[in-house]
């Protein structure tokens, strides 16, 4: 791959920079310092691998004139394809586009495909390097570079990247660190936890067994406790029963005593007193009843005599009863008979009227004789139905016949119409209808298009002619092949012109900036002049500052010493006063006196006083000792204080001697103030001076920039002029007109227009040709059928179009006509067929109508016969006959009803007569007068009343007779009962052992009391027995004893219950646990979870193992590859190095046992490390190594350009020449770009490589 052209826009100093195209081979780019060589190198790197990131330490080459950085490289690949790589600034190196032969291929991926395995690092350190990279051998030993170099034969595989990816993939699964967060690490830890949890669950069976055994043990224990509890409970209950029985027992004893106090009564009549009182009451009542009965008997006999009944009435009681029963019927019939007579009369009149309405021939006799049987009625109805049906059929057939007539008439008219239409119509050439309409339409369309396209072609040709009117001779034919070149020229000239404008603009801007900077410098200089200078030089200021600091220290020390001296003097004075105030002689004298007095008194036998004096003396002697010791201590302190005072005074004297001297006090402060003022002055002066320096530097820089901008503008103008000259030469060479740039641009644009017009003409011509071809095919296919018709096709042109239009119309008309005739024929045939069908239908309808008429006639004959058979008038219509038949039925039913009414009336009259006769007979028997119909009711009432009275009296008498009989028996009965009562009373008194009623009552009360006491005693005994206690059980015990025993039992019971509850709770708890153990499925789930985790771990481990082994395989392959590839690289490097050093060094090698140590060997066989070489020689070694690497790399890849930025700085002349020779030889296969700022390098390059292209960057910039 080689770079052909580049365009840098706003990249550092370059603004729309387009150097001369690189010729291939070796190109030396010459430029002085700051000409932009490094910028250009950085630009090439940036376009290929991206602009540096904002945070990158690399120079980002910000645009000097602002705007967005962009640029492009035109590179030609090994296969001859031309690529353009365009990149603009942006994130991640900036977006890039790759065009291949003007067509967009893609972005980053396309560029990577183009560059192959070479990354930015490799390119920087191996292919496009500066002196800085060259000097460092280490850059060749680093990751990507090393991999790219040693892997040059690997087909472009980035082994390290693959290796890294595999390692990362493996480490993504597992890391060897103890607390790594990789999935497998986590999973193994989790499995550990799960296993521990499961292990806990695995102890369940043992626990279950233990629990089960314990539960059984507890069950036994519970049963034992329950038994014990039962025993104690029984005992407690017995004690409680005895306790409860004790009061009962006591009460029973009392009751027995009470019973013993009462008289002994073995038995006594039950309810004796009540019975006695009842007998006495009954006795009195019987005595009273006897008296009353006798009185009532007399009264009854008297009333019987007064009650009598009439025997005559009683004799006719039954007839009277019948009359009484017929009384209501009598009255009802009296009212009913007239109404019945009226109704009979009305019915007779109605029937007579109805019979008259049937006709004079009808009378009651004929009506009664008329046969009205159901069969006759049904015959009539059937005859009527048949007749009506025949009439309906006849009417329907008549209607159908009429419809058939109408339809026939219509079809006759339609047939006539269609026949007439068939006869009508125009004729045409039927053969025209046979022409293919599609062919005709296509031909017509082709003809129209041919005409339109021909017009379009003429128009386009005219436009083209206008466009080419002022073009040079040869016109488009000459221009068209070169249009691309002309366009390129146009672009190039435009770019050059734009560069000129940009350079002038930059120069103007630089000048303006410089003009703006000049006043600032002047202003800063004036400000600096105006500032007062500092008092002291910097050294003086530092010395004075030190002196002042020392003086301030001494001053502080002096103050401290003086205050210490004053404190010491005060202390000496105080101690002196204390020592002086102690009287030493007085205590001594007092003590001596006391002791003397004690001796004297002892001698005088005054022992008590002598003792007192002795004690006093001894006390005074002790106090004297203490006083002496205190005085000695004060004296010691005083001495010490005096010594301190002396020391401080001497030290103070020293400090005074060394002290601030002349700078003391006010002077010192003034000196300090002066020093501070001096510092502030110096600070301001320095700041202003720095500002001035920066302004001067800026001005200088701006001046420099302005100069460079002017130079660049001049250079751009020169380039533009050169470009114009080249363009003119090119035009002249191709005999094209030459004009001003604007005219040239205009000419170029017109060339474009002309070229487009030409292309349009050609396109229109081609299109027209295709249309003509199509038209011709149509003409040839139409010609034969038209020739058969005797018609000829005109030539192409308007006549042909008109002919085709007419032909299409005629053909269409003929096709339409042919279609119409066909349709009319079809319709006429259909009409004829319909007419025939209508005629057939009419004939059929007429036959059916005649048949219906015959049927009607027969039906009428049958009907007449039926009516006559029924005895009716044969002239009657069916409906009238049926009506008459019905009315005759009604008349017959009316006559029957009338007969019944008459019979009823007769019966009523006979019954009335019978009742009247019975009344008369009865009246006669009882002796009443005769009776008529009007007096019947009153007579009956009288008889009935008499009968009632007689019957009542007879019943009352019978009753009184019965009562009298009974009353005559009552006194005897009462007397008998009275005797019985008296006897029973006497028996009762005897049974109670009483002599009389009073005694009986008293004994009765005693008996009741005795019974109550005995009942109560029995209750007490039952209660005692209910408690299960016998009297003997209570003997020998007392309630107090029993209570004590009961308390003891309760206590024991509580204890047992507590134990039982505890045991039961433990059992329940264990049972719950067992139940949980039995139901718990946790361990099963846990085991499953653990198994899943283990499977997952095994899977992850396998995956990790595969990745790790793959990583090892690739790593080992890479190492082997490096080992085996290295000799070729080093061999080539050794050859280059030998040539560069004129044979001084013959070998470059890399001992396998010392892989990191490259070595060279001199012609004398001396081995040296690179560090032992001179700088220049080492750089030549590194260059040789790179050339070797590049050659190895290029064996299997499209070689990349080799770009070097001033690498020969440390080469001596001959070695530089040899290096350029080597590079010149490499340039046969590689593009080599050498940047240099040394003219001699250019000269050497020209000598070493005659075909070298030399570009002056300065000129290029211009």
């Amino acid at each position, binding site marked *: 791959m080689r770079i052909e052209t580049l365009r840098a826009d706003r990249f550092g100093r370059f603004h729309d920079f387009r150097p001369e195209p690189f010729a291939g081979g070796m190109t030396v780019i010459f430029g002085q310092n700051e000409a932009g060589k490094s910028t250009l190198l950085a630009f090439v790197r940036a376009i290929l691998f991206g602009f540096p990131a904002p945070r990158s330490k690399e120079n980002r080459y910000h645009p000097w004139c602002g705007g967005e950085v962009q640029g492009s490289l035109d590179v030609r690949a090994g296969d001859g394809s031309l690529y353009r790589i365009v990149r603009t600034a942006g994130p991640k190196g900036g977006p890039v586009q790759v065009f291949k032969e003007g067509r967009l291929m893609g972005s980053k991926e396309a560029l990577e495909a183009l560059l192959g395995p070479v990354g930015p690092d490799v390119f920087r350190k191996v292919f496009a390097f500066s002196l800085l990279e060259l000097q460092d051998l280490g850059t060749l030993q680093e990751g990507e570079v090393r991999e790219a170099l040693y892997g040059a*034969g690997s087909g472009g595989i980035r082994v390290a990247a*693959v290796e890294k990816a595999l390692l990362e993939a493996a480490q993504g699964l597992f890391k060897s660190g103890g607390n790594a967060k990789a999935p497998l690490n986590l999973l*193994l830890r989790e499995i550990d936890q799960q296993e521990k949890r499961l292990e806990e669950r695995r102890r369940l069976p043992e626990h279950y067994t233990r629990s089960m055994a314990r539960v059984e043990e507890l069950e036994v224990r519970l049963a034992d406790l329950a038994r014990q509890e039962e025993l104690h409970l029984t005992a407690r209950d017995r004690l409680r029963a005895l306790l409860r029985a004790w009061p009962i027992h006591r009460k029973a004893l009392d009751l027995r005593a009470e019973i013993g106090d009462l008289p002994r009564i073995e038995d006594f009549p039950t309810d004796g007193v009540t019975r006695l009182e009842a007998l006495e009451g009954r006795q009195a009542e019987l005595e009273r009843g006897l008296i009353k009965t006798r009185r009532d008997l007399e009264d009854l006999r008297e009333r019987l005599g007064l009650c009598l009944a009439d025997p005559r009435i009683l004799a006719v009681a039954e007839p009277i009863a019948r009359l009484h029963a017929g009384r209501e019927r009598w009255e009802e019939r009296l009212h009913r008979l007239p109404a019945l007579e009226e109704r009979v009369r009305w019915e007779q009149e109605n029937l007579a009227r109805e019979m008259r309405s049937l006709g004079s021939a009808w009378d009651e006799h004929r009506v009664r004789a008329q046969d009205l049987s159901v069969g006759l009625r049904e015959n009539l109805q059937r005859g009527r139905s048949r007749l009506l049906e025949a009439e309906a059929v006849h009417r329907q057939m008549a209607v159908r016949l009429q419809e058939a007539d109408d339809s026939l008439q219509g079809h006759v008219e339609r047939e006539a119409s269609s026949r007439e239409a068939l006869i009508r119509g125009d004729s045409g050439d039927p053969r025209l209808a046979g022409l293919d309409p599609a062919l005709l339409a296509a031909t017509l369309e082709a003809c129209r298009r041919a005409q339109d396209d021909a017009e379009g072609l003429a128009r386009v040709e005219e436009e083209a002619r206008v466009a080419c009117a002022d073009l040079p001779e040869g016109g488009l034919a000459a221009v068209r092949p070169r249009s691309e070149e002309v366009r390129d020229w146009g672009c190039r000239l435009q770019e050059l012109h734009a560069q000129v404008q940009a350079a002038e603009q930059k120069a103007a801007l630089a000048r303006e900036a410089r003009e703006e900077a000049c006043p600032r410098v002047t202003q800063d200089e004036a400000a600096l002049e105006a500032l007062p200078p500092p008092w002291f030089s910097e050294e003086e200021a530092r010395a004075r500052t030190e002196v002042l600091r020392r003086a301030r220290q001494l001053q502080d020390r002096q103050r401290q010493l003086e205050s210490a001296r004053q404190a010491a003097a005060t202390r000496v004075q105080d101690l002196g006063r204390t020592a002086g105030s102690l009287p030493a002689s007085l205590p001594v004298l007092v003590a001596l006196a006391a002791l003397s007095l004690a001796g004297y008194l002892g001698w005088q036998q005054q022992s008590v006083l002598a003792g007192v004096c002795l004690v006093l003396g001894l006390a005074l002697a002790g106090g004297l000792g203490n006083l002496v010791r205190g005085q000695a201590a004060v004296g010691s302190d005083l001495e010490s204080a005096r010594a301190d005072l002396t020391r401080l005074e001497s030290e103070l004297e020293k400090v005074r001697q060394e002290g601030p001297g002349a700078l003391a006090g006010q002077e010192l402060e003034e000196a300090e103030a002066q020093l501070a003022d001096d510092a502030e002055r110096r600070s301001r002066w320095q700041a202003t001076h720095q500002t001035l320096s920066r302004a001067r530097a800026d001005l200088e820089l701006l001046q420099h920039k302005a100069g460079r901008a002017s130079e660049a503008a001049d250079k751009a103008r020169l380039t533009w002029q050169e470009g114009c000259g080249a363009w003119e030469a090119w035009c002249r060479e191709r005999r094209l007109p030459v004009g001003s740039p604007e005219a040239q641009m205009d000419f170029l644009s017109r060339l474009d227009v002309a070229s487009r017009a030409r292309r349009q003409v050609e396109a229109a011509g081609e299109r027209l040709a295709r249309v003509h071809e199509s038209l011709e095919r149509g003409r040839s296919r139409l010609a034969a059928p038209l020739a058969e018709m005797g018609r000829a096709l005109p030539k192409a042109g308007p006549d042909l179009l008109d002919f085709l239009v007419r032909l299409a119309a005629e053909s269409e008309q003929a096709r339409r006509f042919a279609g119409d005739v066909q349709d009319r024929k079809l319709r006429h045939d259909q009409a004829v067929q319909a007419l025939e069908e209508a005629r057939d239908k009419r004939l059929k309808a007429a036959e059916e109508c005649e048949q219906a008429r015959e049927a009607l006639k027969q039906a009428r004959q049958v009907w007449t016969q039926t009516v006559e058979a029924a005895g009716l008038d044969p002239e009657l219509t069916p409906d009238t006959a049926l009506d008459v038949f019905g009315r005759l039925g009604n008349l017959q039913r009316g006559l029957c009803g009338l007969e019944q009414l008459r019979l009823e009336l007769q019966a009523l009259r006979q019954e009335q007569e019978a009742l009247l006769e019975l009344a008369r007979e009865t009246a006669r028997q009882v002796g009443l007068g005769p009776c008529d119909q009007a007096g019947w009711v009153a007579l009956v009432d009288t008889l009935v009343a008499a009968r009632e009275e007689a019957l009542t009296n007879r019943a009352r008498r019978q009753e009184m007779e019965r009562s009298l009989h009974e009353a005559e028996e009552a006194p005897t009965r009462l007397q008998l009962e009275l005797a019985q009562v008296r006897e029973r009373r006497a028996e009762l008194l005897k049974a109670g052992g009483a002599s009389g009623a009073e005694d009986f009552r008293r004994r009765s009360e005693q008996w009741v009391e005795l019974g109550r006491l005995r009942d109560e005693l029995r209750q007490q005994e039952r209660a005692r027995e209910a408690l299960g206690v016998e009297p003997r059980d209570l003997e020998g015990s007392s309630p107090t004893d029993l209570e004590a025993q009961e308390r003891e039992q309760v206590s024991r019971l509580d204890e047992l219950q507590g134990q039982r509850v505890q045991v039961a709770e433990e059992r329940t708890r264990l049972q719950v646990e067992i139940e949980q153990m039995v139901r718990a499925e946790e361990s099963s789930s846990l085991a499953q979870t653990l*198994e*899943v985790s283990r499977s997952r771990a095994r899977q992850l*481990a396998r995956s990790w193992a595969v990745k790790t*082994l793959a990583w090892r395989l*690739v790593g080992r392959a890479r190492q082997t590859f490096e080992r085996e590839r290295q000799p070729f690289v080093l061999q080539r490097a050794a050859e280059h190095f030998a040539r560069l050093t004129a044979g001084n060094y013959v070998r470059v090698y890399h001992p396998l046992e010392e892989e990191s140590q490259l070595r060279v060997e001199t012609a004398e066989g001396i081995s040296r490390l690179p560090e032992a070489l001179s700088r220049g020689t080492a750089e030549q070694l590194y260059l040789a190594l790179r050339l070797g690497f590049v050659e190895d790399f290029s064996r299997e890849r499209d070689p990349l350009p080799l770009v070097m930025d001033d690498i020969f700085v440390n080469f001596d002349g001959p070695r530089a020449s040899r290096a350029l020779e080597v590079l010149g030889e490499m340039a046969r296969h590689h593009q080599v770009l050498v940047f240099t700022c040394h003219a001699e390098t250019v000269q050497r390059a020209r000598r070493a490589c005659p075909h070298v292209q030399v570009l002056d960057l300065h000129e290029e910039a211009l």
Partner: protein
Amino acid sequence: MIGSSRREVDRPMNLKYLHCADLHLDSPFQGFQKLEPWLAERCRRAARQAWQNLLDLAETEQVDFLLVAGDVYDGAERRLQAQLVFQEGLQRLAARGIHSYVVHGNHDPLDGRLGTLRFPEEVTIFPGGSVSSAVYRRDGQALARIHGISYPTRNPPPDLGSGFLRRGDEPWQIGLFHCTVGSHGDHESYAPRTLAELAASDLDYWALGHIHLPGVLQDRNPTVVYPGCLQGRHARECGPRGCYLVDVREGAIERLDFVELDDLRWVAAEVDLAGVESMDEVRDRANAACEALRGGAQGRPLLVRLRLAGRTALCREIRQGGEDLAEFLRERHGEGSDFVWVERLDLAVRPALDLEGRALDPGLVGEVLRQHAGFTEQEARAALADLWERPMARRVLPELKPAWLRDCLDEALVLAAESLEED
């Protein structure tokens, strides 16, 4: 008649019994990387359901007795619930008059954590130590003698159960033993025996346990049967699982039927993805495989390990999208009573590139191939030592066996080659 008593049949003797083994009632399912809660519950209950199916069968067939040839529980620390389930089942059979004869195996030796569960008198659990026997009587008539021995510990001496010998006059004599007869792949060998040794004991039927794959080792003189496990627990236990129903008529085996009892069935299937050109096609083929499995399962739920194999250019995409594909298949087929649950997709697809043919390639891929060929087992172990030397990992992860290492190395080769090719 596929087998008969070698004693002359003195009197007509009919027997019907079930022979099962390796219930592993408390064993979790293995191999799942992820388990939906509902499926976890289903798996958790599967072994017990299979046991219930066995009990139903015993009642339906009205068998005389049930033989359980060891490994009732999965671990020596057998879980309580499993023990209770087993106890309840045998109690249920005893209530119907069906006897049970049980020996313990290497997974549930007598010294394990066994709760003191009480069994009815119809249940005979053979002790360890030496071979003992129990007589089965029906209506007072001794019909069969069952000889058996339980494992006293997990690792008993190899001569355990050497005292099996015909004794007594019972016409049908059975050896109930948990042992290894012949070679059975990855099953550890316990109390190894040969068919000749078994034949020498002069018994009529050998009710064996320990090998999880059902099969009749010898159909007569004597009949030697492994019923296999009752419920497959992982993908290596594919296919039907259940017990043998033995019907002895007139002193000879008239029926020896394998009865399927498993609640969930493991199935392994392979999908050939050779030549697939799109992931849609991959999905369709896998889908079709699941459909076919479902169609052939006769309504039984399946746990499927699907192996995607074949050379394809989509190798990398398939590897990356394997879990998505599995999820898709689970969503598509994982519902209903006859669900087909893809437990795992074994991604055994290989790239389309011919690795073997590139061994002489001077490039990096060729170098990787050469390195792979020279990679020793020790080097592989050393490379994986970081993980495998951790105590926890050693406890959880599989042992680094040569075959496993070779598989990993092959897969690593593919991964490395793909990575280099892709770059």
